[in-house]
């Protein structure tokens, strides 16, 4: 009877851990190497990747990660890699984070910073994102600070009127958008929009030109 109870509690915990990600659409759950590879190659937004296993430490971090995702879903993208499931995928492992010898280091959060250019001109292949390992506290505030610090902008920075005129004259009939401010930096919503509308191979809509101009 006692054994049965332990089994039931175990099953309940497994179910709870997985169910958390099923209840939110802010986090995409990944269970195969193929999905993980696609995440690396089709990346426009700064993406937070949680590698987890069914362990107490992972279960502690999962709700924090989900809440972080739900509050910042406009600005970043979020994926959760279930390493227990990845273990069953017999294709060659693409990320060392799920490897057996890294088992004790999970959960782990990695941020993928999209490359400025889609194609790596040296190799002539799809450029890979920069990988940034998160080593801060497991709080939404600290995660948000880290993400904000590494959030990329894909708008062309114009600093002189000549550059502005050149931007306007280039491709006269193209669709363009310009953010004009009297500050040196641009806000997060603008950076996120430049990720959303940057020139894309196929998937998202894109504008012909995105620029920011500051009077200071």
């Amino acid at each position, binding site marked *: 009877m006692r054994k049965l109870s332990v089994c039931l509690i175990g099953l309940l915990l497994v179910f709870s851990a997985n169910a958390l990600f099923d209840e939110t659409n802010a986090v995409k759950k990944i269970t195969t190497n*193929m999905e993980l590879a696609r995440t690396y190659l089709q990346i426009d937004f700064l993406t937070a990747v949680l590698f987890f296993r069914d362990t107490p430490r992972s279960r502690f971090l999962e709700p924090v990660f989900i809440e972080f995702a739900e509050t910042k879903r*406009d*600005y970043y993208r979020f994926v959760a890699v279930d390493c227990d499931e990845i273990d069953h*995928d*017999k*294709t*060659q492992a693409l990320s060392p984070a799920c490897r057996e010898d890294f088992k004790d280091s999970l959960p782990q959060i990695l941020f993928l910073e999209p490359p400025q250019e889609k194609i790596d001109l040296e190799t002539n292949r799809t450029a890979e994102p920069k990988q940034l390992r998160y080593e801060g506290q497991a709080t939404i505030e600290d995660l948000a600070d880290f993400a904000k610090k590494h959030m990329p902008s894909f708008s062309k920075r114009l600093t*002189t*009127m000549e550059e*502005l005129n050149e931007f*306007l004259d280039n491709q*006269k*009939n*193209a*669709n*363009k*958008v*310009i*953010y*004009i*401010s*009297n*500050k040196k930096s641009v*806000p997060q*919503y603008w950076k*996120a*929009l430049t990720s*959303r*509308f940057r020139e894309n*191979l*196929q998937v998202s*809509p*894109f*504008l*012909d030109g995105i620029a920011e*101009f500051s*009077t*200071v």
Partner: protein
Amino acid sequence: MLAKANKIYEHFDVQKFPTIIVLAQKDGEQTEMTYNGELDYASLEKYLLKNAVPKKPATPPPKVKVEEAKPQASQEPPKPVIKELTPDNLEETVYGTEGLVLVHVFKGNEPHKTFNEVSTKFK
């Protein structure tokens, strides 16, 4: 700095900072619009999708040949083509195909069980 600000006032109808200007094609002419909505991601995304994203051209025919059409007894979508990828056709197949492309990479003669199941289902 002030001169730069004055010039931008002259160039665009800037009343306040920040200002977002959208230049978009409308009926063959370029129209200049000043965004007056809320300064947040969702509102701006909606506005840009409506006003500044080029309309998609008519869907081009897929570059990868789909098997010859059979008599259209039913309106079922065409089944995917399963073909071997080589370095020469990889780019065209992966990026030149409309819709979802599933690539299965395997070593020797050991294809993944799930892929076998999926490919059998669609054959």
